[in-house]
């Protein structure tokens, strides 16, 4: 139950980060949209999320490994983003970085506990890493059009984080007595809206009420 609380905390932080970013995006777009328009009324192909984060919860090992692999990337990313030329973005990043530092610490501790726990937990953690590792490379690709933003100092270049991410992951997996996968094929496509089959049912639940009662206020 203590862990339910921690996972809910992470969920709340992530929803909060998403809301701040959506709201900022809607302001910049200036087309009268709001955070809910962007989250609830776009179709799957218009979602440009990383494939990693749409992977199913699976067992606790899969959930934790997913959060760990993501946090090890996004925490230093937020840190770089605090230097953005866009003041709002920099402020969002400053808040988010504190949260993601906790996510990273917490998920890393669990990865270590599971890897260095029982034979079963080690097996499950290893399976989770094998399943999720192919989705990690996509994090370091520069999303379409972001090179322009990067040139203006608005957003960092994610490719620059590859080494620090690898160091973090390698260190934690080492302490978890788990091997860092070497080589192997890497998936991509999430940034271009090419998703796995896991996203569709999530969106069906997310958007159901908004879609059923168009234009209603909740």
């Amino acid at each position, binding site marked *: *139950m*203590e*862990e*339910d*609380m921690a996972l*809910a*905390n992470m*969920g*709340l932080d992530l*929803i*909060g980060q*998403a*809301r701040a970013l*959506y709201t900022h995006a809607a302001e910049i777009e200036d087309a009268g949209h709001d*955070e*809910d328009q962007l*989250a*609830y009324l776009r179709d799957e192909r218009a979602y440009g999320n990383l494939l990693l984060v749409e992977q199913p919860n699976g*067992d*606790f090992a899969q959930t934790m490994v997913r959060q760990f692999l993501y946090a090890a990337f996004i925490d230093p990313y937020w840190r770089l983003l605090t230097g953005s030329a866009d003041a709002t973005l920099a402020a969002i990043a400053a808040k988010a970085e504190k949260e993601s530092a906790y996510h990273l610490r917490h998920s890393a501790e669990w990865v*270590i*506990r*599971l890897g*260095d*726990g*029982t034979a*079963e*937990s080690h097996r*499950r953690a290893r399976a989770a890493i094998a399943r999720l590792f192919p989705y990690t490379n996509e994090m370091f690709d520069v999303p379409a059009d972001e090179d322009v933003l990067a040139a203006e100092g608005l957003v960092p270049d994610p490719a620059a984080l590859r080494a620090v991410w690898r160091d973090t992951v390698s260190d934690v997996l080492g302490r978890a007595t788990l091997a860092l996968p070497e080589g192997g094929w890497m998936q991509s496509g999430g940034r271009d809206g090419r998703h796995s089959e896991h996203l569709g049912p*999530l969106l069906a*639940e*997310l958007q*159901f*009420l*908004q879609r059923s*009662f168009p234009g*209603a*206020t*909740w």
Partner: protein
Amino acid sequence: AEQTARFLERVDAEERIEPNDFMPAAYRRTLARQISQHAHSEIIGMQPEGNWITRAPSLRRKAALLAKVQDECGHGLYLYAAAETLGIAREEFVEQLLSGRAKYSSIFNYPTMTWADIGAIGWLVDGAAIMNQIPLCRCSYGPYARAMIRVCKEESFHQRQGYEIMMTLARGSAEQKAMAQDALNRWWWPSLMMFGPPDGQSTHSDMSTRWKIKRFSNDDLRRKFVDATVPQATYLGLTLPDPDLRFDPETGHWAHGAIDWEEFRNVIAGNGPCNADRLARRRETHESGAWVREAAAAHAARQKARRAA
């Protein structure tokens, strides 16, 4: 006997009884039962609301609902901690819940069918819970009283949130207003039942009152709740599903129609719409976490051994 007399004097003097103080065995038993049931209610109560987290209609509502369910988990944890001060381990309480021996608030055996149910639960169920719990903030047992102070603060926030959801629906489209009315129709009577059987039929009340665990009778608390809720429903433009409800100018209170105590006993006895699902879900969660708890224990033991080496 002298110790017991001294204990009652302290209770009468409104002193707080603390874990290491003397207390009669029956007082300890009563408290352990009540506090752990209360904890179980918080934990099981996560389910009906959890059912709508993925389908919440906006990001703001989603975040608020997740935070609320998290608070309920937190309440469960403080309350288990308060109950543990009576010398019983949390594992034992959890085992009582999972085996079906322990009870929890019967209200959580009703399903959440629409989004308006989330509003109705916040408004009515949390509202009734607060009525029950405010007096417990002055309960004679210190750890319970202190836990309740913290719980009540959060519950009243939840209650306002629920009321605001109902308000938004009641002022929304005709479909939304109908959804709000439908939820009120389904949750009103079970909320009144939350105060327990009518005075005189309640089995544990006498000693609890003497020990200052309980400070108001079930019917008194129910009356307070009805008095507080009727004007709120009026303000929302919704109708309470009780044709016999009327204001009694002599007493200055609202009088409600007859409560279906048969339904109450049935739900308590395990026959509510969701009793089986709630316990099954709790058991599955507990069992599927077993390997994780074992892993954490194995790792901790290994760490300790390493440090010792």
